[in-house]
């Protein structure tokens, strides 16, 4: 659905060829593309605007190095700025207070507070020797308190006893007293989901945070959030003076622009990200990964990772080498048809590669069904070794033989040969795609190896 920013900038910068310096005029088109990329990634409009201004100032008058194209230079500037704003340090929770250190989780309905509470508790007990208590202040959603209790039982984390008909503030105060008397080091308070325009509910949480001395006030935010994330951050920050953000569902495929909006507005660090449904799936925040996602540069990484999962490391590397070299025989074709179908078909594979959207569509037209893959495999297995390497040998009489052997019509064989010819031409194009090649080869982007091993969530 999305093209990568690099791709768009290449188009925008076509005019710049042969010129040595980035000027205001040449930059304007590019800035338009950057703006679109940011907005498609759900970065809030006001944040996008100030960001673009910043990038423009940094890029203006920069000399274009001979070895790189101006598009790449601008992408680098954008990427660096994104990382800068998202925050380059990792932050742990501040639990240095007179025990119990109190962590309050707040956010919209369905943002993932309860699951995150359990994940945080688990993380704290595993990384330190601290004794953690959890309490749910959600008296509104049916069985919300039970949900936290179940999660606590599953993970050997104590939860506050549920007493029906208590108000959220009463529960919070009871939790603090209990934590004190039982010598807990940390108390995690999971609050009910609320919208920032709901005055009554916002007042409730303000009162709780005022009456109880919290050390951490984290806003839990869905990484799929849209433009309004900026308002959520503003209002919750005004109400609670947030100490951090916890970004959830980063294992989804959203571009995660909300992270940038939140960070810019709330001015507090993104401390953790949720990367899966299991209680262990909470990670430190890495700004470079989110930056990559926002810019759509993670696609190649996703492909590599997917290949890694579905085939194996060695085969994934081979596949890439083949693509890069543009070499492809019917043998390879057959061998990989089944693997490729595992990875969501050819179309599914190619959509991850920058600059190949058009080709993808063509292939999808001609190769819509997985059934075709089976048919084609049966035809190829009826060919001789020589025929598979030199398909141009296959004339009328050979076709008849293959047709008898595979039980497929000559028309189907023709179709396969035609399609393979198209395919190998496309693979050659992929091989010539300099942008892809440089991305895979360049050292300062993640090397293939680290892409394979490092990217759990991309």
């Amino acid at each position, binding site marked *: *659905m999305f093209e990568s920013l690099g791709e768009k900038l290449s188009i925008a910068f076509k005019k710049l060829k042969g010129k040595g310096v980035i000027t205001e005029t040449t930059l304007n088109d590019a800035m338009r593309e950057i703006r*679109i990329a940011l*907005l*498609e*990634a*759900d970065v*809030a*409009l006001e944040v996008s605007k100030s960001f673009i201004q910043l990038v423009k100032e940094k890029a203006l008058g920069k000399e274009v190095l001979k070895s790189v194209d101006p598009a790449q230079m601008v992408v680098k500037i954008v990427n660096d700025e994104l990382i800068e704003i998202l925050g380059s340090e990792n932050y742990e929770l501040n639990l240095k207070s007179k025990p119990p250190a109190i962590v309050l989780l707040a956010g*919209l*309905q*369905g*943002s*993932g507070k*309860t699951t995150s509470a359990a994940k945080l508790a688990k993380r704290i007990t595993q990384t330190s020797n601290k004794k953690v208590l959890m309490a749910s202040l959600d008296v*509104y*959603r*049916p*069985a*919300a308190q*039970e*949900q*936290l*209790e*179940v*999660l606590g039982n*599953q993970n050997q984390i104590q939860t506050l006893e549920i007493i029906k008909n208590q108000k959220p503030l009463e529960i919070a105060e009871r939790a603090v007293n209990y934590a004190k008397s039982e010598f807990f080091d940390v108390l995690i308070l999971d609050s009910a989901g609320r*919208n*920032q*325009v*709901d005055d009554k509910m916002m007042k409730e949480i303000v009162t709780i945070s005022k009456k109880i001395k919290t050390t951490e006030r984290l806003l839990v935010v*869905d990484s*799929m*959030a*849209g*433009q*309004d*994330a900026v*308002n*959520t951050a503003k209002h919750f920050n005004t109400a609670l003076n947030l100490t951090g953000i916890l970004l959830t*569902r980063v*294992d*989804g*495929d*959203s*571009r995660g*622009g*909300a992270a940038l909006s939140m960070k810019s507005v709330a001015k507090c660090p993104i401390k953790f990200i949720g990367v899966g*449904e299991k209680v262990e799936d909470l990670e430190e925040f890495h700004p470079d990964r989110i930056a990559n996602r926002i810019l759509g540069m993670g696609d190649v990484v996703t492909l590599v990772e997917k290949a890694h999962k579905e085939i194996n490391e060695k085969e994934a590397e081979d596949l890439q080498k083949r693509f890069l070299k543009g070499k492809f025989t019917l043998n390879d074709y057959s061998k990989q048809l089944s693997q490729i179908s595992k990875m969501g078909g050819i179309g599914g594979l190619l959509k991850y590669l920058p600059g190949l959207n058009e080709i993808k569509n063509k292939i999808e037209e001609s190769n819509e069904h997985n059934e075709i893959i089976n048919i084609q495999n049966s035809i190829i297995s009826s060919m001789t070794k020589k025929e598979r390497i030199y398909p141009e040998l296959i004339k009328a009489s050979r076709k008849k033989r293959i047709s008898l052997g595979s039980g497929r019509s000559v028309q189907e064989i023709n179709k396969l040969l035609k399609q393979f010819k198209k395919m190998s031409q496309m693979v050659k194009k992929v091989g010539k795609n300099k942008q892809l090649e440089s991305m895979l080869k360049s050292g300062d982007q993640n090397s293939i190896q680290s892409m394979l091993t490092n990217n759990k969530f991309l």
Partner: protein
Amino acid sequence: MFGWIKNLKKGLNKSSKKINEGLTKIFKSKKINEETLDELQDLLITSDIGISVSDSIIDSLRKKKLNDISLESVKKNINESLVEILLPVQKKLELKSTPHVILMIGVNGSGKTSSIGKLASKFSRTGKKVGIVAADTFRAAAIDQLRVWAERTKSKFYFTNVNSDPAALVYKSYNESLEEKIDVLLIDTAGRLHNKSNLMDELSKIIRVMKKIDEKLPQEIVLVLDGNSGQNSLKQVEKFNEVTSLSGTIITKLDGSAKGGFIVSISKKFKTPIFFIGVGESEDDLIDFNAKEFSKALLSL
């Protein structure tokens, strides 16, 4: 006016006010030039409408060469474009078989369980016999949450042990609901991100098992979308449509300041019907989607 229109307007009031203010600012002082159109597009974008739809709306404005660039006139133009896109997806959910099986799906936290509660309340109030199947056997206390709703709405409740096979429960519940002459069978499923193939396979299995009983099952597959979402909602529709055949959507949480503009993009691209929108936490706050009212409320017309 109808109560629900008020409700909807109340829910969207904040957002439309903002758009309104912006529009007034633009059109009071300036002639309609490229810069102005850009700014107007920005306003559409803050509603999560997305680039391509806002582009086409702006383009159509540009072609129209408006003589009258008053606020009302421009807003009416935008409204026309929005209604044109939204009207085809305004569909009623109609109960046609007994039981009419409605499978609710969506990403985590989108509001499936609450929507089921609200639907159960809606149907039981019209005298229908409602069954609720707790096929989210994964999330902690999901079954308990739904049990509360079943009790509140006096619905028949079908459940099984935590972590057991949801497809098996669905199979069993459907057969029981046939015998018990249930009118509507609402099936809750675990939240799943659309890019997780194992979870999507699980969903296919639930559907496959139903189709073994009757090819027509389930009568409805309804995707629940969070109104706070951004452009990823399009991907959700695309991906869920790949493994299932969506009969419609429910858009939740439209009572905040999020505008839910992605509805327009989804309607344009996928033409997926919108059955209901959620505008509050109480049982009555799930209302029929009405294209004209939605568009009007969004633009504060």
